[in-house]
């Protein structure tokens, strides 16, 4: 009788949970252990803003809604932080409890907020918004009419922003870059979003840093690089995240920005794989290996890594960077090389008054990047066209003139329709 394999997965986010389910699907007899560094049932950070906005309860954030899911799938969930990996002994040391021996290991340990060297970030009333515990703390402190400062208007900051507004707080956003969401949007889109926020009563300070936070009488005083000092009851820090690779020190597993993986999501160590926010895997747009800390990529990684762990050799040809954001009803998204490439062509269409913007980027007659504001219908087609590298032929010229016909272009090329 063949030996029963033991799959250990570090991290109970989307990549880890999807990997566990995938492994169960193709390796019915294996032992599967899911190691969660937090005390809650596996949950989705993506859902935290909706929890903060009181749209859902904590259970609404759970990655699997069926309470018996893990038991039924025979997935052992261990609530303990992994502190060390020894690939030679094939074991994972935990903060509490016995080390886990594995046959195959998946590192899906995710990311954590970056600790910035700003004095006062450790004060009470200053909080990152990343874990369930953070969410509880923020919910406890941010109430209707309270003055709140949000540090960072990147993608995550902007997601939290809406939740804070729904809680009825008076919000000031402080962002170092010259515009909101500079990693996902160009000046036009970022500017549109900023004006939208300002129209909804949010103070947006771009090109501004927080230099120090001090405890005032009953509130926090926040010193800005502009020299101004503003005060608030709560400061929410959303100024970037970095892969959780610290615990790999000494393991011999190669890291760079994240855990380095090959085209099958395997790390430098035998039988050890990595997935999700912690992995530095192939970006299909650039061909380079980089960290793409987004939900759909975590799902792709989790599934493909699991297939490889189960012995089904499955290449990972690269994931597509993409994001979607709802800012008080104004929905924006970006895909791939949204800022274009040298030698490519771009088409833009903007309607400032209608809060709509669409930017397409091409290389030859293939779509490589999309940015959209205020346009949601059939938007996933952007992914389809970019990822398949579908040649657009005559439709490229049409799209250069009328980018809004993207969905038509996709269906037409799929159906071999040339005119129009």
């Amino acid at each position, binding site marked *: 009788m063949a030996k029963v394999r033991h799959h250990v997965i570090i991290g109970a986010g989307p990549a880890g949970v999807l990997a566990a389910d995938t492994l169960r699907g193709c390796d019915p007899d294996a032992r599967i252990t899911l190691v969660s560094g937090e005390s809650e049932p596996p949950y989705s950070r*993506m859902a935290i803003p909706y929890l903060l906005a009181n749209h859902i309860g904590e259970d609404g*954030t759970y990655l699997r*809604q069926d309470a018996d899911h893990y038991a039924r799938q025979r997935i052992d969930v261990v609530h303990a932080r992994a502190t060390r990996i020894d690939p030679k002994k094939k074991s994972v040391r935990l903060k509490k409890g016995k080390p886990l021996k594995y046959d195959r290991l998946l590192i899906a340990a995710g990311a954590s907020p970056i600790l910035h060297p700003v004095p006062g970030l450790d004060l009470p009333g200053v909080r990152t918004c990343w874990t369930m515990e953070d969410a509880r703390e923020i919910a406890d402190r941010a109430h209707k009419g309270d003055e709140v400062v949000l540090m960072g208007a990147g993608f995550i900051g902007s997601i939290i922003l809406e939740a804070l507004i729904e809680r009825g707080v008076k919000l000031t956003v402080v962002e170092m870059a010259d515009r909101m969401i500079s990693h996902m949007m160009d000046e036009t889109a970022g500017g549109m979003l900023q004006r939208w926020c300002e129209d909804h009563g949010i103070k947006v300070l771009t090109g501004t840093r927080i230099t120090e936070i001090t405890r005032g009488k009953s509130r926090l005083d926040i010193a800005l690089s502009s020299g101004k000092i503003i005060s608030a009851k709560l400061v929410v820090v959303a100024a970037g995240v970095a892969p959780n690779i610290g615990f790999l020190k000494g393991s011999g597993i190669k890291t760079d920005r994240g855990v380095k993986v090959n085209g099958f999501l395997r790390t430098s160590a035998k039988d050890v794989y990595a997935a999700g926010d912690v992995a530095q895997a192939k970006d299909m747009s650039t061909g380079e290996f980089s960290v793409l800390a987004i939900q759909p990529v975590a*799902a*792709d990684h989790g599934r493909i890594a699991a297939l490889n762990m189960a012995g089904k050799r499955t290449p990972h040809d690269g994931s597509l960077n993409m994001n*979607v954001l709802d800012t008080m009803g104004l929905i924006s998204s970006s895909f791939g090389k949204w800022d274009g490439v040298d030698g490519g062509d771009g088409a833009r269409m903007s309607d400032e008054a209608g809060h709509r913007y669409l930017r397409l980027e091409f290389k030859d007659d293939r779509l490589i990047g999309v940015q959209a504001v205020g346009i949601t219908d059939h938007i996933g087609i952007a992914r389809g066209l970019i990822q398949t590298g579908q040649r657009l032929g005559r439709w490229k010229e049409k799209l250069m003139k009328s980018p809004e016909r993207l969905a*038509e272009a996709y269906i037409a090329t799929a159906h071999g329709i040339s005119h*129009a």
Partner: protein
Amino acid sequence: MQMALVIDPGKCTGCKQCELACSYVKEGEFNPAKSRIRVFDFHQDARFVPYTCTQCAEAWCQQACPVNAITTNDSGVKVVHDSLCVGCKVCTIACPFGTINYNASTGKVIKCDECGGEPACAEACPTDAIVYMDVEQAGFDKMRQWAAQTDAGARA
């Protein structure tokens, strides 16, 4: 037997009865903008293309959902559970066909669920451009091949 919506654009006249039937069943009103099926009009080529979810095996939307609000039923149909959907829209960018869409009036996403086995669009189609039939018999269509191409790398 695997039942599916099989679409023949060559028979479509662009009447939009499918959109009307769909929106009535799903929204209780006649509203093509909220239909889960949409007819694309390529008038310069004399062609109309009804377009909706193919219930692809890859289930991009389901995999991308952070709160397990999309599941696959026994017929292979991907179903959105409104009580769980938080409206994060990740599925709408993850679906490479663009056939799961955000409905701003409910704050949830919407997609074709084949009406639980009695699709109203097929019933309403006057020209049999949309039929609900056993896919193994249908020799199925380009959209499935398209689905295969769109795989993010997993060619398993």
